[in-house]
């Protein structure tokens, strides 16, 4: 492509042109010379070129040829042609020796190499030369047949069509493989992954059509809510039946447990809004433990205002109640509960090492079917009802049968429950009006049922732990046991499994299936075939046969997308999958997934029992009941969502860097069939990565707001919002230990020698003062070179002759005496603190303003506090000396600073506001962040009682103390504070005053410390 890369080409053509060299044995130098010559435009070569290129170029173009190039186009035309000639010439010379009888491999293939490739462009060109292909230096739709490249930039992938013009984009290995096979192979497998995946992901028209027809066929049969059960899709489909039972359980509860049974519509919210104790959130969220008051609250709302209470627009605490009641949330956070209950067992103990290879592992996977438990109890309900109906009440059997029928159908058809449940409710409703007794019995029964159910999981694990030490909990009813070590005692794992199963069914009344195999993967797969209520032993010998016919879909880690992808490659079973090489898998599915797939389809699984996989993302989604009226609603909702996510992050002890906000936007205006459901939605998402991992609510809210603003969606169309946090980092390891010791380490050692040094400095200063009057003059002009007073050693000072001492004192502007007295008090303070203090008060200046701030700053903090406590407040800058005085204490001590607590209960609004705002910030925040926050609260209009002198003086005091605190170390912070204050003062006259009063103090301090005035 470039001039240099076509270098050998030219040598070839030269040889051809000169007609006296049949093979290109020219040296490089020679080539170079010739090239130069050629560039000058030899007319003979030009004409020759025309002859060679005439077949490929139109004659109109050739008219330019003899003339000097008029534009780039004509130049390129000539250049291209020339390159062709050269290539042809070289090809004919290089393939001369080859057997002419066979058609060359790349006959008719013309490649264009784009970007960096392995092998290099030159090598590829060489191959094409040798094997009868063509090599294009410049892309042309007409001449090129294949584009070769190893990697494409994102822009080219996006605009693939404009880049490739529909030509195949193939990896260079294709050429190598073709040569190796000595025939032209299909390029399809060698297609660039980026594009291949693109092509696979791209929805085809046919798939749309297929889906449509599916939906149409589904709808009449199953009810129109196909798209609503996205939540149930999330959960394992294997659990479907069980969930149906649970679902139904809650459902019943909804309609019966509450007194408001007359309003059965409230039970429509079966999937998310389940006011139900089994859904109690995990123990980790202690603050939101099931609160009976709260739970009963929402149904009562329902009964009052029919169905409106569950939407975001009406319930201010929607998110909280949502997650409190969501059953899926319960399942999701169940693990935390489990960890708390069995703390030792669930921890990935390091002692669990992969057992020696000689030892065969045996893993049991147990899957309990809670559904059976519920089902059995449900049958009891029915029988109870029958009993009731027979003995006490005299109801028609028709109704009874109707109810039973509906319940059964609901259990079986969990996936499209809405309509069925509705009908059922209708049936029940009619029933209920007359059969209060039954209802009461049933509801109380269900309550006990739920309580029992919560214990089932605990019982289940109790049994498992009894039998085996290594238990890994998968979910509340699924676990993996590693019985490798037990094999000494238990000869046949099957016996053990059946024992466990029997015990489970004895204690909990649930059936359980078990799969026994050599590793976790196989055990799980075995359980799959053992279901329901059975067990399956899969010895290693049988693994291969077992896997061969197994559809790939059942392997863990293969979801719908990956399954489709594999299907596209005609891979349906694990047997098929085994045919694919590891490299291809890794290439197609990504490094890790490919690896896992390759292992899994061979039954290899190296995971250890007891390992707890750290979650990769933390997030919260709300897809039910989301209805917004205006932007404010949305913001409130986002706020609470952020709170929830932040709580979860805290709960997991992680912080995240990437934040993804997902929004579901309704497709049609119609309300979905499922009450308050999300209906048919388009999904949108935006994400953002921040450099610092965070779990802070404020940051989350800011990010979320920002992300939300990207959507440009009418808030009324939003049907679901979710926030996910990924790129998690552990909060503990957040502080990188190795960076800690960088700078400060080398300054520390000097601290030990500090005392000595200060003596030296003092001595030096005094010596200079004695010797050099002139120096003294210049020095006092610019205070720069005076050592800070704290560096003076008071011992030395005391021992100085009085005249020198007074001179130095003068030098320090009279502050030295204070310093020395203070130092004395410091010394006396150390042994007898209280006594020292009382002594202090006598030697102390009468007001804080008389003390040099710098001196104060240099003192150790405790001492400083003591002094400040002892002194009357610093008040000479305040114009309202009559107002009740600010305190003597240091307002910025502690975390949160003292003033926060003080102002919280203040009767002055402005102080209260600041205090509240500060409390809302992170601990140890700066004043500037407080001010910044105050600015962002646009509604925060600070009370403008101009006679509110007390508030002003308090604020002045805070600011002054803050100045004193920060003047030494953080000029930037003070600068920011005062600029913010200036901005804030536009909002309140009081703040104008505060600003005007404190600014002189700031400037004075800056002048003292930095010898200048702050530019604000």
């Amino acid at each position, binding site marked *: 492509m470039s001039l240099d890369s076509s270098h050998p080409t030219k040598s070839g053509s030269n040889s051809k042109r000169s007609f006296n060299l049949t093979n290109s044995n020219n040296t490089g130098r020679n080539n170079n010379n010739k090239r130069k010559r050629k560039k000058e435009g030899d007319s003979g070569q030009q004409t020759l070129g025309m002859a060679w290129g005439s077949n490929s170029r139109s004659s109109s173009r050739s008219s330019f040829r003899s003339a000097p190039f008029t534009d780039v186009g004509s130049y390129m035309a000539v250049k291209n042609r020339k390159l062709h000639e050269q290539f042809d010439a070289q090809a004919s010379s290089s393939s001369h020796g080859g057997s002419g009888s066979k058609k060359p491999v790349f006959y008719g293939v013309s490649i264009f190499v784009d970007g960096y490739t392995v092998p290099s462009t030159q090598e590829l060109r060489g191959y094409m030369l040798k094997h009868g292909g063509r090599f294009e230096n410049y892309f042309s739709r007409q001449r090129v047949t294949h584009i070769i490249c190893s990697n494409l930039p994102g822009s080219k992938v996006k605009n693939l069509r404009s880049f490739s013009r529909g030509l195949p984009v193939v990896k260079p290995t294709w050429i190598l493989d073709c040569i190796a096979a000595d025939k032209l192979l299909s390029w399809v497998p060698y297609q660039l992954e980026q594009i291949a995946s693109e092509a696979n992901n791209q929805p085809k028209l046919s798939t749309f059509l297929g889906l449509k027809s599916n939906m149409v066929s589904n709808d009449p049969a199953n009810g129109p809510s196909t798209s609503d059960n996205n939540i149930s899709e999330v959960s394992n489909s294997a659990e479907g039946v069980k969930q149906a039972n649970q679902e139904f359980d809650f459902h019943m509860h909804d309609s019966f447990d509450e007194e408001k049974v007359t309003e059965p519509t409230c039970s429509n919210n079966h999937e998310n809004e389940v006011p139900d104790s089994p859904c109690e959130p995990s123990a980790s969220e202690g603050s939101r433990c099931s609160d009976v008051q709260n739970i009963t609250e929402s149904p009562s709302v329902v009964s009052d205002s029919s169905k409106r209470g569950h939407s975001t627009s009406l319930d201010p605490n929607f998110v909280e109640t949502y997650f409190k009641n969501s059953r899926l949330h319960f399942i999701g956070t169940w693990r935390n509960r489990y960890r708390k209950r069995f703390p030792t067992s669930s921890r990935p103990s390091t002692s669990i090492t992969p057992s020696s290879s000689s030892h065969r592992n045996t893993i049991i996977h147990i899957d309990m079917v809670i559904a059976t438990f519920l089902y059995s109890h449900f049958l009891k309900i029915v029988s109870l009802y029958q009993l009731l109906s027979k003995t006490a009440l005299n109801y028609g059997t028709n109704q009874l049968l109707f109810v039973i029928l509906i319940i059964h159908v609901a259990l079986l058809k969990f996936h499209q429950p809405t309509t069925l449940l509705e009908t059922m409710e209708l049936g029940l409703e009619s029933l209920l009006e007359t059969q209060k007794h039954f209802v009461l019995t049933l509801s109380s029964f269900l309550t006990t049922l739920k309580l029992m159910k919560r214990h089932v999981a605990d019982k289940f694990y109790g049994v498992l732990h009894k039998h085996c030490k290594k238990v890994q909990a998968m979910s509340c009813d699924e676990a993996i046991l590693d019985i490798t070590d037990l094999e000494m005692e238990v000869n046949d794992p099957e016996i053990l499994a059946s024992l466990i199963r029997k015990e489970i069914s004895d204690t909990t009344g649930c059936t359980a299936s078990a799969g026994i195999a050599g590793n976790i993967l196989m055990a799980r797969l075995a359980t799959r075939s053992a279901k329901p209520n059975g067990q399956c032993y899969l010895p290693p010998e049988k693994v291969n046969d077992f896997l061969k016919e197994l559809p790939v879909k059942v392997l863990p880690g293969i979801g719908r997308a990956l399954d489709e992808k594999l299907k596209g490659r005609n891979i349906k079973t694990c047997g098929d999958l085994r045919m694919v090489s590891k490299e291809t898998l890794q290439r197609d599915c990504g490094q890790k997934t490919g690896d896992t797939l390759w292992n899994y389809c061979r039954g290899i699984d190296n995971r250890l029992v007891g390992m707890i996989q750290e979650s990769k993302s933390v997030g919260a989604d709300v897809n039910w009941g989301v209805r917004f009226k205006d932007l404010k609603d949305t913001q409130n909702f986002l706020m609470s969502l952020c709170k929830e996510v932040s709580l979860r992050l805290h709960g997991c002890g992680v912080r995240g860097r990437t934040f993804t906000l997902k929004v579901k936007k309704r497709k049609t205006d119609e309300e979905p069939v499922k009450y308050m459901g999300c209906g048919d939605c388009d999904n949108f998402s935006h994400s953002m990565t921040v450099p*610092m991992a965070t779990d802070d609510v404020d940051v989350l809210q800011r990010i979320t707001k920002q992300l939300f603003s990207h959507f440009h969606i009418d808030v009324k169309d939003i049907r679901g919002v979710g926030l996910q946090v990924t790129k998690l980092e552990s909060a503990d390891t957040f*502080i*990188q230990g190795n*960076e*800690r*010791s*960088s*700078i*400060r*380490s*080398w*300054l*520390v*050692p*000097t*601290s030990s020698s*500090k005392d000595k*040094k200060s003596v030296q*400095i003092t001595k*030096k*200063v005094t010596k200079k003062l004695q010797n050099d009057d002139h120096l003294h003059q210049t020095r006092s002009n*610019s205070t*720069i*070179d*005076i*050592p*800070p007073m704290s*560096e003076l050693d008071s011992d030395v000072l005391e021992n100085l002759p009085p005249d020198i001492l007074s001179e130095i004192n003068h030098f320090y502007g009279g502050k030295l005496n204070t310093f020395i007295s203070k130092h004395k008090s410091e010394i006396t303070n150390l042994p007898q603190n209280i006594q020292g203090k009382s002594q202090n008060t006598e030697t102390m200046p009468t007001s804080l303003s008389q003390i040099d701030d710098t001196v104060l700053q240099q003192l150790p903090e405790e001492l400083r506090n003591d002094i400040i406590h002892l002194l009357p407040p610093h008040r000479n800058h305040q114009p309202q000396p009559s107002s009740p005085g600010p305190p003597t204490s240091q307002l910025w001590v502690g975390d949160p600073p003292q003033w926060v607590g003080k102002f919280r209960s203040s009767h002055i609004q402005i102080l209260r506001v600041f205090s509240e705002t500060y409390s809302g910030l992170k601990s140890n925040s700066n004043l500037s962040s407080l001010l910044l926050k105050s600015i962002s609260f646009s509604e925060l209009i600070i009370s403008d009682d101009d006679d509110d002198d007390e508030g002003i003086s308090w604020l002045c005091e805070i600011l002054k103390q803050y100045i004193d605190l920060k003047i*030494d*170390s*953080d*000029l*930037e*912070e*003070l*600068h920011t504070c005062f600029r913010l204050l200036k901005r804030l003062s536009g909002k309140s006259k009081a703040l104008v005053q505060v600003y005007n009063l404190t600014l002189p103090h700031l400037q004075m301090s*800056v*002048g003292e410390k*930095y*010898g*200048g*005035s*702050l*530019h604000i």
Partner: protein
Amino acid sequence: MDRKENQYSQRELVEFLQIAITSIIFLKGIYPPGAFERRRFMNLLVHKARHPQLNRYIHNAVNALVPYIQQGLVERIAVIFFKDDRIPVERFIFKINANVNQSCDDGGENAMMDMRSFLMKLSLSEPISAVVSQDWKWEITGYFSSVPESEDGVWISSNAQQWTQPPLITPIKSMNIQPLSLQLYLEHPPPNH
């Protein structure tokens, strides 16, 4: 404290100051942009002087100052820009507080982060981007709290004159890495000057 670690972190400070000073010089634009090459420091884009002499000047100046910083003698390091009349136009001052007597308990965890944000802020700060004509000169000056003992002729007197009035200070960035606190601020002559 073992010697090696000490050396390492000293090198780091030298590097940091060098980069900060070079950034100022680069951003002020007294040399053509071509005089600098792009480098990466703590995953940040920084600049390094191409001209060996310029590079050496900065390097040597900082290197010579660092031992005194360590001893707590250096109070400020100033990058002074002045015109032909030797009256400074701008002074970028690195005020160094080596709080050597403070125990390093907290705040020092994210020294690296602080340095990064320091450099970031430096490159973004408003006053620094003000355009400067290329005929300015500049120098690095160290302000000491006392005259260091070893006076073996390595010191050259400052070219710059003093201002007659206290300057106007614009803070740029403060950084507290215990036990070192570094503040960068800009000094301008007061407007009536």
